[in-house]
């Protein structure tokens, strides 16, 4: 086995499939880009094809689309509340993209683009900037009261406003690092234990069992992290829509 094959982080290497440079900027079509396009195509096909022949009693695919819709609709309804309906398409797109991306990454030899901090941070930044703009557009200067907690003694207020500001501005970081770190850690762990299976020979049965369990855990994490990302987006939207 080659040394680079044994490196558990090798799976995250970006490969330029179609090298492309525009004005000194590297815009090559990479393996990560391919799987992002694939995720977009899968989601679009799933939703459009599944809802093409709508029936009162849904078929298999229509059920999938309906479950995805209702799950997200309930989430937006529950966490954002009234006034959040108009942001449903955004949350749905985000959730489906991350969900399908995570699950595409579970296919052997596939590339997990959600394990790239650039990708997750870009999504988190869109959420953060979007929520800030929505909040200011809806409430104007009153949006700043978000940083002033209720019922706090006056001498403590300046300190708490600073802390609130910090906790507001770390949102895109926690949001992006959570998804990125979970995907990297999980997939690297899988690669490490799978590597032991070969090198331990007959005793490889033990790491094989661990790997099997880890694959199941990774499926759980893949779904859960997409859910957590969407829920946090909803919570942030709630702040922008309702203030406190």
């Amino acid at each position, binding site marked *: 086995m080659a040394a680079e094959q044994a490196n558990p982080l090798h799976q995250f290497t970006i490969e330029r499939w179609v090298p492309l440079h525009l004005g000194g900027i590297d815009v090559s079509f990479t393996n990560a880009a391919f799987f992002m396009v694939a995720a977009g195509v899968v989601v679009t096909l799933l939703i459009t094809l599944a809802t093409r022949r709508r029936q009162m009693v849904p078929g298999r695919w229509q059920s999938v689309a309906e479950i995805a819709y209702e799950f997200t609709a309930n989430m937006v*309804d*529950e*966490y*954002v*509340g*009234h*006034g959040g*309906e*108009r942001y449903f398409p955004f949350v749905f797109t985000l959730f489906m993209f991350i969900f399908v991306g995570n699950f595409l990454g579970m296919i052997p030899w596939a590339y997990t683009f959600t394990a790239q901090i650039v990708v997750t941070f870009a999504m988190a930044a869109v959420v953060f900037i979007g929520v800030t703009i929505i909040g200011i557009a*809806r409430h104007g200067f009153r949006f700043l009261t*978000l940083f002033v*907690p*209720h*019922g706090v003694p006056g001498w403590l207020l300046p300190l708490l406003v*600073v*802390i*609130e500001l*910090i*906790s*507001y*501005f*770390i*949102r895109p*970081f*926690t949001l992006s*690092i*959570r998804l990125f*770190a*979970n995907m990297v850690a999980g997939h690297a762990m899988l690669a490490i234990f799978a590597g032991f299976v070969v090198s331990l020979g007959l005793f490889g049965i033990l790491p094989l069992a661990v790997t099997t369990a880890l694959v199941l855990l990774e499926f759980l*994490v893949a779904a*859960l*992290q997409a*859910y*957590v990302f969407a*829920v*946090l987006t909803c*919570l*942030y939207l*709630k*702040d922008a*829509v*309702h203030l*406190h």
Partner: protein
Amino acid sequence: MGGVFLSLAGGPPMDERDSQDPFRDLGERLDEARRRRQSARDSRPDDDGAAANRDALGLAFRIGLELVVAVGVGVGVGWALDQWLGTRPWGMIVLLFLGFGAGMWNVYRAVTGMGMAMGTKRGKPGQAEHAKDTGWSDEDED
């Protein structure tokens, strides 16, 4: 409009009503759908153990990172401020503790679900009450 009142008061038999005007009992049907939706919403927290489980798991995965990132970002911003203003090492020290405080508070709020600020658990019950009246309408909030 008279048709709606007629159908509320009993009205013509079912098949006749359907063939005449599909919008006739629309208000009635909308009310019915809203009632069903509201009762589903009311019963959700009590009997839906799977949703509670999912939420708990999501929370557990969420808060672990909150503290670390807050401290990290605090130190990073402090370091950058020091580079810019030449106040080394004070910006980093102060922001380290502020970041630590912000992280602690975020975790505390995420766990207790206090309604006082951002990142807390879910909409207040009052909002759900309000949503009951209007459902999924697109009208603006006050």
